């Protein structure tokens, strides 16, 4: 059992995180459900199919919690009036981290190191505008990542573990609140129309269409018609394409999100 687990961890270690995940998924048949017995009886067993996805969520929560912690500790960075926002974000991300660590138990990956300069590209703790810019990117990405991981990628498995699905949704909606608040702080609409013009150049990739990521099928531009699940929403609902786009937060695949956040992670 532990041999299998350490081989999965080895596969995930190193720079080839995406490739490692693909290998791990292939080498662990679904029947090989290795959910360890939980110390606390009320913790649900985590199916093996969900371990990687929940660790992915844990990585993002750790990233956010650490980011806000460092921001709050940076003298003179956050204006006094805004502190309550980031204190709230930090506290809640830390609760999310704690929850996921407990849920995953010994399947929780060790915490990586983070470099929020992304190799010197950003100075988020010297410049408030950069700090809030990255906060927005992390939160908006986090909302979409949860959705992608919790719903689109493993919908059937999550449906078979409704307690875990519900917990994931309860975190996910809070991330939506976070994203809205940070966007408002930056004088942006609290909702997202997938409009490239709106994205600052530095993080445009978070919001951008990229042909090479076609396999993830992220939707980015507000192109007409805005079709959701085969329905031309502007037409049936009497809304503009932009409004229709804002009304839905779309999922984002785990592999794509990991690629986006990789510059901020020191060791994989």
């Amino acid at each position, binding site marked *: 059992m532990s041999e299998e687990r350490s081989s999965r961890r080895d596969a995930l270690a190193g720079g080839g995180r995406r490739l490692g995940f693909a290998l791990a998924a292939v080498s662990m048949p679904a029947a090989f459900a290795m959910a360890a017995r939980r110390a606390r009886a009320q913790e*649900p*067993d985590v199916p093996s199919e969900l371990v990687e996805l929940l660790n992915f969520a844990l990585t993002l929560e750790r990233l956010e919690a650490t980011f806000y912690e460092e921001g709050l500790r940076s003298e003179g960075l956050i204006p006094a*009036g*805004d502190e*309550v*926002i980031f204190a*709230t*974000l930090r*506290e*809640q991300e830390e*609760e999310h981290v704690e*929850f996921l660590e407990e849920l995953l138990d010994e399947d929780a990956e060790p915490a990586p190191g983070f470099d929020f300069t992304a190799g010197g590209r950003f100075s988020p703790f010297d410049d408030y505008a950069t700090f809030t810019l990255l906060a927005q990117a992390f939160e908006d990405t986090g909302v979409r990542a949860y*959705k992608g991981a*919790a*719903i*689109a990628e493993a*919908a*059937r498995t999550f*449906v078979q*573990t*409704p*307690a875990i*699905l*519900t*917990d994931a*949704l*309860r*975190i*996910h*909606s*809070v*991330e*939506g*609140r*976070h*994203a*809205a*608040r940070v966007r*408002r*702080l930056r004088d942006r*609409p*609290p*909702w997202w129309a997938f409009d490239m013009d709106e994205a600052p150049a530095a993080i445009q990739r978070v919001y951008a269409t990229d042909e090479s990521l076609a396999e993830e099928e992220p939707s980015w531009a507000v192109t007409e018609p805005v079709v*959701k*699940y085969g*329905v031309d*929403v*502007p037409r*049936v*609902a*009497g*809304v*503009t394409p932009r*409004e229709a786009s*804002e*009304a*839905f*937060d*779309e*999922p984002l695949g785990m592999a794509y999100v990991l690629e986006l956040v990789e510059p901020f992670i020191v060791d994989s």
Partner: protein
Amino acid sequence: MRADAPAGPRTDRRAFLGWGGASLAGLVAVGCGEGDVALQGVEGRQRVVTLDFARDGDVAVVNYSLLLQELEGAFYEAVLADPPQGFTAEDLRVFRQIAAHERAHRGLLRAKLGRRAIGPIATDFRTVNFDRRADVLLTAQRMETLGVEAINGAAQYVSLDGPLGLEPLLAAGEIVSVEARHAATVADLRSPGRATEEFSPRAFDAAKPPDEALNEASAFLRTLVRLVDLPAPEET
């Protein structure tokens, strides 16, 4: 089958609204039979909507979501038809955008459900003071939060078997975080120029079971909602 169907009258209206209100007809929960919970709105019934979870599965879940979206939409339309004097340009802009999103949500859900969609619902907002900005914002905040809590609580009833496939879960996921954005924004509008923690009161939004969510919503519903064969919450 719900073993713990409420039997007596409830006076959740005041709890929902968050302030001491006049005593009104209130809400009556009637046991129609084992496992059935009928929630009666304001004064008598104008029409009945039945959500039969056993018979209709995911269709019932989506209709449940549609019902709440319709309620929200009706509220926003009522506000925008006659906004409070104290509403700023920003308040109006936000409310118009939210109203458009709600139209998009129910437009999608209705289109996907087709003839399986519930009929229009009748609402009653007489207890809302549309002249007071604070009341309108608080009501909007509670409604959006309820929408979030209801979708979070409905996910466990989704089976993904049936005519709608994965879409009920995927669509619910895309909608609920936007509802959360709405809730956070409206909460923030309540303290203009001053940041508070109101945008996110807790690290985990609630996941309310349908009878509880509809009990709250019934403060504004004329339509009688019957929940049939609501499954017991999963334990695993």
